[in-house]
């Protein structure tokens, strides 16, 4: 029994170990955080990954180049087109192929639409993490609209498998421009609606402003990229820093944050959606007609060599290091996934926070476990 007279007042506080995940509604997949909590405070945190490991990189070594595109679809399953894009670019770079103009524009349009879809998903689920149930309903409507356009174009709502080395799979439906330009006003309205509801909501700001602050040095040290880095005030965007595809032909801004907290990470993403809408607008004006593929349905056999290509995914910079031994299958494919690198800063952020903030911080990093575990 408890000895009442013998209470050690200097005793170390009792820590309780809480397993958050892998089955937890706010871990965005099968991520597991082990939290040592003292009352409502997180003393220490540890992240465990690997629950979704499928060995994608190893699988790539046994597949032909065109079959790998499917595997890349499943890395970051929220932004499939962006993933296909980076892999196709890597192979094209290795082979030294030029992609037809029209195909480049189509790729950019689809990638930016996918970026909006991904950020919309983030906006909704971040609201859910904070306890607001309405934004997710509003954002999913916009996301659904985008996905039906994707379906009309590629035949699938997700996992499109549409980009090809040297272009895209086939020419677009005849009303492609119409489809996308019809989509844009509605999409803008959806984004604005969710933005208005959540961004300056007092309770939302009280929950997210000043929570999970990353200073610029830490962000750079941990290799954060994408919105998580830009929220700290570093205007680094691969689309600007090292323009690929036709991104140098568009006029767009790189939104940056100031404080580097959860709210800034949220807000940078909201601003990015508006920028993406602008890019799509411009791309629709400039899109030329012509062929969409240089290679056609040919077996890909790049020359011997290696290549590193990076591009800007919704979650940050994705890099692909591709080694070819001259056969129809790559010797090695190494992916530098943005979510994985962004996630590494979590343990630092979670020190001495509230349990409720742990969810907010994890949500603000916007990880996709398919990409973290690969």
């Amino acid at each position: 029994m408890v000895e009442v007279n013998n209470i050690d007042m200097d005793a170390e506080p009792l820590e309780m170990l809480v397993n958050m995940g892998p089955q937890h509604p706010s871990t965005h997949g099968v991520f597991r955080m082990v939290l040592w909590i003292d009352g409502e405070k997180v003393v220490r945190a540890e992240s465990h990954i690997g629950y979704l490991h499928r060995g994608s990189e190893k699988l790539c070594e046994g597949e032909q180049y065109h079959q790998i595109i499917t595997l890349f679809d499943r890395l970051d399953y929220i932004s499939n087109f962006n993933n296909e894009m980076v892999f196709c670019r890597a192979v094209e770079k290795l082979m030294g192929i030029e992609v037809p103009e029209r195909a480049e524009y189509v790729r950019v349009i689809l990638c930016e639409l996918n970026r909006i879809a991904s950020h919309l998903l983030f906006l909704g689920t971040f609201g859910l993490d904070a306890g607001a149930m309405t934004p997710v309903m509003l954002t999913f409507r916009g996301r659904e609209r985008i996905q039906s356009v994707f379906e009309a174009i590629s035949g699938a709502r997700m996992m499109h498998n549409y980009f090809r080395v040297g272009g895209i799979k086939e020419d677009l439906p005849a009303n492609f421009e119409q489809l996308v330009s019809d989509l844009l006003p509605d999409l803008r309205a959806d984004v604005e609606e969710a933005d208005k509801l959540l961004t300056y909501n007092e309770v939302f700001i009280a929950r997210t402003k000043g929570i999970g602050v990353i200073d610029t040095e830490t962000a750079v040290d941990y290799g954060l990229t994408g919105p998580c880095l830009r929220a700290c005030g570093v205007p680094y965007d691969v689309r600007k820093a090292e323009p690929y595809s036709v991104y140098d032909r568009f006029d767009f801004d790189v939104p940056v944050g100031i404080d580097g907290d959860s709210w800034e990470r949220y807000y940078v993403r909201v601003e990015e959606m508006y920028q993406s809408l602008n890019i799509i607008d411009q791309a629709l004006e400039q899109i030329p007609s012509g062929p969409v593929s240089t290679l056609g349905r040919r077996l890909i056999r790049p020359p011997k060599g290696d290549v590193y290509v990076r591009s800007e995914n919704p979650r940050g910079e994705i890099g692909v290091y591709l080694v070819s031994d001259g056969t129809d299958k790559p010797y090695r494919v190494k992916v530098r996934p943005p979510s994985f690198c962004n996630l590494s800063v979590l343990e630092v952020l979670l020190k001495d926070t509230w349990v409720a903030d742990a969810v907010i911080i994890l949500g603000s990093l916007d990880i996709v476990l398919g990409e973290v575990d690969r």
Partner: protein
Amino acid sequence: MRIVDFFLIILGLLVLFTALSVVVLSLTWLERKFLGRLQRRLGPNRTGPMGLLQPVADAVKLVLKEDILPSSADRAIFWVAPLVVLVPSFMLWVTIPAAENLVLRNVDMGLFYIIAFSVITILGLVLAGWGSANKYGILGGLRSSAQLISYEIPVIMVVIAVAMMAQSLNLIHITNFQLPGIQSITPETARLEAGIQNVPFAVLQPLGMVIFLIAGLAEVGRTPFDIYFAESEIVGGPFVEYSGAHWSVFFLAEYMNTFIIAALTALLFLGGWHGPFNPTSPQWLESLVGVVWFLVKTYFVILVIFWIRGTFPRLRIDQLMAFAWQVVVPLSFANILITGVFMYYGWPWWSLTLMSLTLSSVIGYLIYKHVTAPARKVAEVYNRRRMIERQPRRQAGRQSSGPSAGPEEAVSGG
């Protein structure tokens, strides 16, 4: 007690329970439909006309589900906790009148009884959290005890202010007191009535009503105070291990409590069953119209509660406790103070309204300024951000800092 009385009581309880179950079913449907409309969806529309049978489908599904007892749970505590939550919320209804003649037992200490019984709910939540031997459950149970005890105080204080005005703890007296032209209830109130004009307490004590609604929201754990079963953090808190029928008992209690808060707001502040059109001649018609008025007011308050739920995120526990002890509790004391001053000096009725409104607007403004300080800072930042950094096109990434100094794109071999 005659045996007939006993059976009458049992019958009354049965009728009450049935009526409450119907109310709860209607509430679940209303919440889904209303939230759906708020979120620009249709809400349930497949089961029956306008999805009216959705609650029935839910109930059937819940009852048919397997009731799981976790292997490490404390069996007795685990099974008894739902009842500890449900029984008090049901017992409260014994003394809540739906119309002047429509109450199971008119207790003179009605408000005292209601407050005393509603506190027991906390015990049930802590038991549920503890008994399920789940860490989220324990966290939720502790959160609920802290939250509910803190917000019990402003509820009591507001109720005291109302009781001071009406000079009674009897709900029927309090409600009748808000009807113009009512006869004296007690000699003490005769002097008061001269100045009071018998208007609904919402007019006399707007501050009291706001505090009551806020604290009531926290009492029943609805957004933005739903931290003790916060789904995205502690996955349902005390209810995390419950399933099937036992979970639905919690669910029932939660909606009953919501209904109680709304009903009490209607009774204490909005004039209960009194309305512009109120016949007095046949008693049954009077009761019927009274019930309709009562339900209209109650459902109005409930819709406000749902509206808040559809709009706000959830507070954090420290923000919640700070709000309770630094804002709501002092304000509820101030509410008693101005009521006492008003009654002691016998000022005209509108002076209390004025005082209450002034106090609530001044304090409300100060709180708003304090709470939204980060928000305003954000807005300034937003204005500054209009000057987003524009980089010249085709400029290579900043080489000095940032991960742009990564490996260069390179093709080798060939």
